[in-house]
């Protein structure tokens, strides 16, 4: 019991560190990346290549005045950023971010590196928890008592509900091919054959597009849309509450990227590589981080490359584009499974 | 001491009663719909409890059907509310008695 708890606690610490470290790193990557794409320098004063800049930013945010506008619904106004961060962190615990490779700590096998490894309904849990993320945004928009925030919140709720559907359908294809709701089994099932992204290319594409919508990133950041809604749902927020929204956005990016990697790109495995012991553990972690890093970069890349969709275009894409595609993917996978095609 | 089925059923009964009170006493259409949702959920809880008692899955399967019905009900109910609101700028159901006789 004690050893088990220690292992779980260890995993939790690793996880939280990973997630929280990812945020400043991503902020830096985003700013430097934007600068690179727009052919300018970006932050370069604080530390070498401006590496310390995110820390300076957070210190600044921490010491800003925490403003509570008049006429807001205090409770909800306070609750909204907390919900956002909480949900963003909660989703990660079922993602297998590495392979234990038979390593034992205090006589306790590490197993697949995720916190809640005994959860049979991992994928469903993920979908369920991530579907709650919308509450943070909607409540922020609502409680601010500001028409821009309200519009942002409204848009966010409609958008998230719409895209969650396509996303879930795309995930269903993977589940169908795997035959299990456990994410570590999804990874294990991919290690012996093609990664899911190949036979379920449609589902993969749908998931990637929906991922952008679910994280409220360009080209789908209609909820904040600074050029029309000022800053959307968090227009009234300042100081650490604002920082909380920022953090949750970046954490969501990490989660979604990790999911993409897990569901469609073989997770922490590389085809043809089987290592044992600590070496295997380190390599698998590195592989996973590498894959996730690629998608994180993709988020940045796309943000600074594509213009924003109009709202009706967004909805049309979601309902008339992605949903049918995801359905087609699901049907194809179902046919494949029914016919016993092993490669699917 | 582990909770027995009775505990769950009592909880379900309480939730059902609270939901029923909400439906019967509130005048806001949204509150009424929420009360109905609560009642359905209480029913679900009882179903799962009974399924556990009998050791089969029928109850759980039925809960899924209930969820689907709840989803359909909410969709139509909210659409009705929107339509009503457009008509008389209010969702007070006591103002809806113009269609009698």
């Amino acid at each position: 019991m004690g050893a088990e708890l220690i292992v779980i606690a260890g995993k939790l610490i690793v996880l939280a560190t990973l997630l929280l470290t990812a945020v400043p790193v991503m902020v830096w990557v985003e700013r430097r990346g934007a600068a690179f794409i727009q052919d300018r320098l970006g932050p370069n004063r604080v530390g070498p290549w401006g590496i310390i800049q995110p820390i300076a930013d957070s210190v600044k945010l921490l010491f800003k005045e925490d403003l509570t506008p008049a006429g807001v619904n205090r409770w909800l106004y306070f609750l909204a950023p907390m919900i956002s961060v909480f949900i963003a962190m909660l989703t990660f615990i079922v993602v297998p971010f590495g392979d234990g490779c038979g390593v034992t700590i205090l006589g306790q096998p590490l197993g697949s590196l995720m916190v809640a490894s005994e959860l049979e309904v991992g994928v469903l849990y993920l979908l369920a928890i991530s579907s709650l993320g919308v509450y943070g945004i909607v409540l922020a928009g609502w409680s601010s008592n500001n028409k821009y925030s309200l519009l942002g919140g409204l848009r966010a709720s409609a958008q998230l509900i719409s895209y969650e559907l396509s996303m879930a359908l795309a995930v269903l294809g993977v589940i169908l091919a795997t035959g299990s709701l456990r994410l570590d089994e999804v990874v294990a099932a991919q290690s012996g054959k093609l990664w899911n992204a190949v036979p379920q290319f449609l589902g993969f594409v749908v998931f990637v597009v929906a991922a952008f919508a679910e994280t409220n990133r360009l080209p789908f950041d209609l909820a904040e849309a600074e050029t029309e809604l000022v800053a959307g749902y968090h227009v009234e927020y300042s100081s650490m509450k604002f920082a909380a929204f920022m953090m949750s956005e970046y954490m969501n990016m990490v989660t979604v990227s990790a999911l993409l990697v897990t569901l469609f790109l073989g997770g922490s495995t590389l085809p043809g590589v089987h290592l044992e012991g600590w070496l295997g553990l380190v390599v698998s972690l590195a592989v996973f981080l590498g894959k996730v890093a690629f998608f994180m970069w993709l988020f940045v890349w796309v943000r600074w490359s594509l213009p924003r969709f109009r709202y009706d275009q967004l909805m049309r894409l979601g309902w008339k584009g992605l949903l049918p595609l995801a359905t087609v993917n699901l049907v194809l996978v179902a046919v494949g499974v029914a016919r016993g095609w092993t490669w699917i | 001491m582990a909770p027995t089925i009775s505990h769950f059923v009592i909880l379900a009964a309480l939730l059902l009663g609270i939901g029923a009170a909400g439906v019967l006493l509130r005048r806001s259409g949204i509150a009424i719909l929420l009360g109905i949702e609560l009642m359905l959920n209480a029913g679900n809880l009882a179903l799962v409890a009974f399924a556990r008692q009998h050791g089969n899955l029928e109850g759980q399967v039925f809960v899924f059907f209930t969820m689907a019905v709840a989803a359909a009900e909410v969709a139509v109910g909210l659409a009705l509310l929107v339509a009503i609101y457009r008509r008389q700028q209010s969702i007070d159901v006591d103002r809806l008695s113009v269609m009698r006789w």
Partner: protein
Amino acid sequence: MLNLLWLVLAFPLAGTCLLLAGARRLGHRATAAIGVGSAGLSLLVTLGALVSYAGMHGEVVTQTLYRWIAAGNFTVDLSLRLDSLSAVMLFFVTVVGFLIHVYSVGYMHDEAATAYARYFAYLNLFMFAMLTLVLGANLLVVFVGWEGVGLCSYLLIGFYFEKDWCAAAGKKAFIVNRIGDFGFLLAIVIAFKAFGTVDIAGLQAAMAADPEAAGRWATVLAVLLFVGATGKSAQLPLYVWLPDAMAGPTPVSALIHAATMVTAGVYMVARTSFIYALSPTALLVVAVVGGVTAVFAATIGLAQNDIKKVLAYSTVSQLGYMFLGAGAGAFAAAIFHVFTHAFFKACLFLGAGSVIHACGGEQDMRKMGGLKSHMKATYWTFLVATLALAGIPLFAGFFSKDEILAKVFAAGVGNLHGYGTVYLGLWGLGVVGAFLTAFYMFRVVYMTFHGEYRGSAEQRHHLHESPGVMVWPLRILAGGSVVAGLLGVSKAMVFDWFDSNWFEHLLHPVAPAVTVGHHVSLGVEWGLIVLSVGVAGAGIWLAKRFYFGPEAGAVPARVAAAWPRLYRTVANKYWVDEIYDATVVRPTNRLAWWLWKGLDTVVIDGVLVSLAFFTEIAGDLLRFVQTGNVRNYALMVLGGAILAAAWLLL
């Protein structure tokens, strides 16, 4: 190749779907490509299948696509059956069908794009249905094809549905066909009831296994099937729709109402010949109906002035010959006539279409004449086909018609089933029919192609030979009308030198002839041949005397004047349509009217109205319970639920 047999059906069906889906978007070119292409692909697959089938030894090939119906012990597979009989049908249906598709490209070219697409879609659908009918391995699949061709026939007859009389003709064809179809359906039901299967092979096996039951049911089954055949193949008394069916575009008349669909009845009789072989009565019925129809329709054909109407009655008459042959037990001879008839009658219709096309839509022969010099290719092909139809030696119709007459004569002399005299009488009718056929066909040739042009000056200016896509099918079909007969030269014609009747051999395993022990001697057979040639020659001579030269038309006018009543009777088609109208159509209408006004309006509506009235009163009383308050309703619902729960629990 044989396991690709289903493609024969799939291509036309795919063509239909494409054309119907794209009717508004496809241009003429694309439509023609899809329509003709699908028929062509079907033809290619057919030829491939037939080549590989030819390498076998006449086995029956069945291909089961899937189990269609499974209900208790009643199972029906969607399965196809290829044997020598269906192979013959398959061959000429796809060949003639493809040629007519090609011809239609030119003939229908003036239609609007959507109508053009619709036309080809229907034509492809017809091909699909007809091939289903031919290839079906059980009666139910055959019935699907049977109904399918009926539907296409209806759609295509009413193709110009904006004209009332075209739509009416379509409806007439459909309704008359339904009467026959009902007989067919009854036969299927009885077959299942009596033998527990609707599969053709299964039925045959079941009847062979239980001769007693087979003998009991054979006559009923055979006659009901024949009722179906009279509808589809336009025999007495259900022939009336076919002449009206000429309202459709001419290629349709050629394909559906001459070459393929109308022969479906004959095919069906040959297909189920094992039933007919067991029932002398049914055979006699078939023979009598066929023989009488042959002469009856031919006499009507004498006095028609619409070129397509003459051909229509000729078709009815020739179908009569086929049934006459089948009724004499010579199923192979009947199918042989179906086969040759497909070529020359399609050729005749397409030739007529070419003529009509040239005359700007004119169908009345009294306004034609002298077209020979304007359209050489049409004239020569038409003439070849006419000679074939008239039964002039070396042309296809001679061999097949003569074969039928010889078999009927043999049946008469051999006293088949003890009905020898009847068969002899029918043979006499057949010979008369042959004379009439030669006469009215040459009447058409002389009135249309010889003499002076009698149409308007504007039409004369317009006269031209048809384009290549229309002429080439004519040439190919004319070629077929010459050579098709060589497949079944009877033994007598080569002086018993060798067994030259390849066609009969081919079909013998599938549809064995009902034979009589008596053998007609070679001399008598030659006598019959000479007689029928002489009769045909006499017909041609008479036609030339009546309708050729400066005196053309004078003699017939004198004849008509001498017997005015007879002439009017024949010209008005024996008033059959009028009789049907008075005895069937109008009484039915009146009955329906009474049912509507009497039963429906008074009795049924009355009950319903009074029910509604009482409900309304009850509602009037009960509506005071409705407070209009939603929460009140909720209260009642919950109270009721509690009461119900209490009642259940306590």
